[in-house]
């Protein structure tokens, strides 16, 4: 039984959605709205915080509380929202430019603190809103308006950054695969702590097809590996390929060849604190490996906003000072009450402080 019986529609605002036709953002928004409806949490308790970029228009299209902030700072502002009121369900909508370039510092510190936020990182490997400059996830050598001869720098792999910042949850999804995105978002919503979901998102205008090689539905089974907790990491049209560890490195093998059986295939454990293997899974790239999709890591750790609350409760349980009047008169004070003393003049007397 659900309490609220929301549908995705309950989370849509009346504002006209103004992303370009065919933009990957539409599908992601649908998935988010569906996920929120399924969470069965009071509509009033949702807050959606975004930075600057195409994806950051997101809050306007939601009927929840929303805050469209400034470039790179959504993570910091959302940290304040959630720390102030841990009862809220807070979502951060951000992009590769917003979170990994101008907001890189806030992003890693959010992840490090493990504040219970759900962050969706729309990764289209380009600056769309400013019309086509390279971003921190643009591949080396890629030609854009600001790299007319190709970039000469390497890209961030968002998952590496998350795990390097001691992240407790990282997942990857693809905008066009709405069903899977929804599953991943539902897991992210369940997670206690910062959940980062990287959604490979297509910018139809400035970087069209950037994820096509991975995303092409015809080769989905060959090029994507869908991670499932507690199950062997198997992929392929015939579900006959899998991952094993050999000399400390991941390797793709074929079940039935060289004596490999299903039992030899590595089982995925996102709940285990196994950073090395999880980073290796994140790093998997075509053509040698399929691209890992789904929840790579989901481990338990102290959650900042809860710890803040707990600490206050612990201190308050033993407190000696319970209100301002007590604080003002605590510690080293002395009383002046001599004969030549005058009555005090109160600071706010005879002044208009309406």
């Amino acid at each position: 039984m659900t309490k609220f019986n929301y549908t995705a529609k309950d989370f849509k605002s009346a504002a006209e959605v103004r992303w370009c036709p065919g933009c990957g953002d539409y599908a992601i928004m649908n998935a988010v709205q569906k996920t929120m409806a399924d969470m069965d949490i009071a509509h009033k308790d949702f807050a959606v915080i975004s930075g600057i970029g195409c994806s950051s228009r997101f809050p306007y299209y939601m009927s929840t509380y929303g805050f469209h902030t400034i470039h790179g700072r959504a993570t910091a502002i959302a940290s304040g929202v959630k720390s102030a009121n841990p009862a809220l369900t807070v979502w951060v909508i951000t992009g590769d430019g917003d979170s990994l370039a101008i907001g890189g510092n806030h992003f890693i510190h959010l992840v490090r603190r493990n504040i219970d936020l759900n962050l969706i990182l729309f990764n289209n490997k380009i600056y769309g809103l400013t019309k086509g400059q390279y971003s921190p996830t643009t591949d080396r050598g890629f030609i854009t308006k600001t790299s007319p001869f190709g970039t000469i720098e390497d890209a961030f792999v968002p998952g590496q950054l998350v795990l390097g910042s001691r992240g407790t949850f990282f997942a990857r999804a693809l905008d066009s695969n709405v069903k899977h995105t929804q599953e991943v978002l539902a897991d992210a919503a369940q997670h206690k702590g910062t959940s980062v979901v990287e959604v490979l998102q297509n910018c139809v205008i400035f970087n069209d097809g950037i994820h096509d090689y991975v995303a092409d539905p015809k080769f989905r089974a060959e090029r994507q590996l869908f991670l499932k907790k507690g199950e062997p990491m198997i992929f392929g049209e015939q579900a006959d390929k899998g991952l094993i560890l050999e000399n400390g490195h991941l390797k793709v093998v074929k079940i039935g060849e060289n004596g490999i059986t299903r039992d030899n295939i590595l089982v995925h454990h996102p709940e285990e604190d196994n950073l090395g293997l999880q980073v290796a899974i994140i790093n998997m790239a075509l053509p040698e490996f399929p691209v890992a999709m789904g929840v790579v890591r989901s481990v338990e750790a102290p959650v900042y906003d809860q710890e803040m609350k707990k600490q206050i409760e612990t201190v308050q349980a033993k407190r000696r000072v319970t209100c301002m009047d007590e604080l003002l008169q605590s510690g080293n004070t002395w009383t002046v009450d001599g004969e030549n003393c005058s009555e005090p003049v109160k600071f706010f007397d005879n002044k208009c402080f309406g």
Partner: protein
Amino acid sequence: MKDAKVIELEEVAIRFSGDSGDGMQLTGTLFSDTSALLGNDISTFPDYPSEIRAPQGTVGGVSGFQVQFGKKKITTPGDLAHVLVAMNPAAIKANAAFMNPGGTIIFDVDSFSDKNFEKAQFKTNDPFAELNLEDYIKIPVPITSMTKESLKDLELDNKSVLRCKNMFALGLICWMFDRPLDYIEGFIQKKFGKKPVIAEANLKVLHDGYNYGMNIQQATPQYIVHPAPIEKGIYRNINGNLATAWGLLAAAEKAGLDLFIGSYPITPATDVLQALAERKDLGVKSFQAEDEIAGICTTIGAAFAGHLAVTSTSGPGFALKSEALGLSVMAELPIVVVNVQRGGPSTGLPTKTEQSDLLQTLYGRNGESPLVVLAASTPSDCFYYAYLSAKIALERMVPVVLLTDGFLGNGSEPWRVPTMDELPPITPRKATNPELFKPYRRDPETLAREWAVPGMDGYQHRIGGLEKNEAGAVSHDPENHHINTEIRAAKVEKVVDMIPELELVGETEGDLLVVGWGGTYGHMISSVRTMQDAGKKVSLAHFNYIKPLPKNTAEVFSKFKKIVVCELNLGQFASYLRDRVPGLHYYQVNKMKGLPFSVHELVENFEKIMEA
């Protein structure tokens, strides 16, 4: 005692001075607290280098703490010290210029070595002659060797022994000024409760210093300073940063809100964050952010979520917060930003005071970005101006910047503690009717919008940095932007109804109006009183409300033949006044030395201007 030379004084300024590792700040603070407890009015001025441990024995590494106390109202730490306690030759060199002619210099004669003279860059081994201090009373005290002798029976390493030197000096000074030791003893016992040997050592040296004073009384003048007749009440000693923190706490309690501080450590504002982090007992949520930007951004987030949200910083950090401050202007969220100003530009003089962030505060953002600016004027009134900043923010849905400075933040004075019922009510503009709610619907009188926060059902809405219409939808309509820009400015101007009119110290007309703002108050009023006592027609207009200015400012100004604006910058308030109260000639007195004004230099300048 009878045999001692006893000097009775109205007020005395003492400067404790030594290497930055010599514990001079603690020594000065303990002496100040003791004096305040005795009923003297006090004013203190810590003056220390920005390096934690600058090279020992050098002039650059000298750390000083000046306290003035007396039997009347003390408004400044004193221009010049009557007594200097110098732990080494460098301290004498650094402070020679700040001594009252004929004052007393107590110095550690053990530190007078060729090596130390060289480090302090003396050319000879007679620092007094080199600095023209021959006419001063000089009391050589073998502080280092007496301390060693005092502690020889305790098994302490040399470093721990030398750390007790400051207690010898403190004991000696306590004897000279007839201060009881009980408060200091209590402090030592508490501080070193877990290290009984260290506590014993400090106590022993303290007493030996006191007794030493008694034993050499023939050579040592003793001073008597009677308690000040002040207002009845419960008092405590408070510095500006603590007062600021507590003022914000008081506002949160009065408003019935939780207090959130998102902040990043920066000299000299860090104490505000520390003081609030300590108050988990009162429910404070303190968030030490990864940088200054996150400091204000978490604050904005907490304000969006319905808290009294504040951030504290100093000049360079304030610069980093500019963009986000603009967001709070646009989103019309109630936040308070405390800027404890220091010497700039850039890293500037981190530990020194200045008033040079005024124009940055007023104008340092993109777009038309008006906000309310208040300035505190004494360490203790930081409490009230912090309180008012929060009240204005919450009732008018506007960001407020409170300007204090290093001098106020670190300086302390006794303060009659108010009770909470002395403070005016604070009524946050929480939305009450979801049917009528629109994000930018305004009170027609104050132009303040309503505050609806996540968790309140029926008020779900979106805000952000983009220009909006009343309903909260993004709007690029030219008319809408024009009107909203005017409304945001008018909203700030309307705060004038919440603030008192400008009051003068002195007659409402005269030859010279002395204008100041913020942390220079103590020196300003002392200098104006000095002029008034000499029969001059001089009045003081000291500003705490910078934007908006008090209603009657132009009228008050019009009654004086000359106006002089004094500030610790190149004339920022003067240029602001030229814009806001035009048509008058503003003389200026400016100082950029990282130090407060001295009463003497102000009086001298006023006399010159009056003659001109």
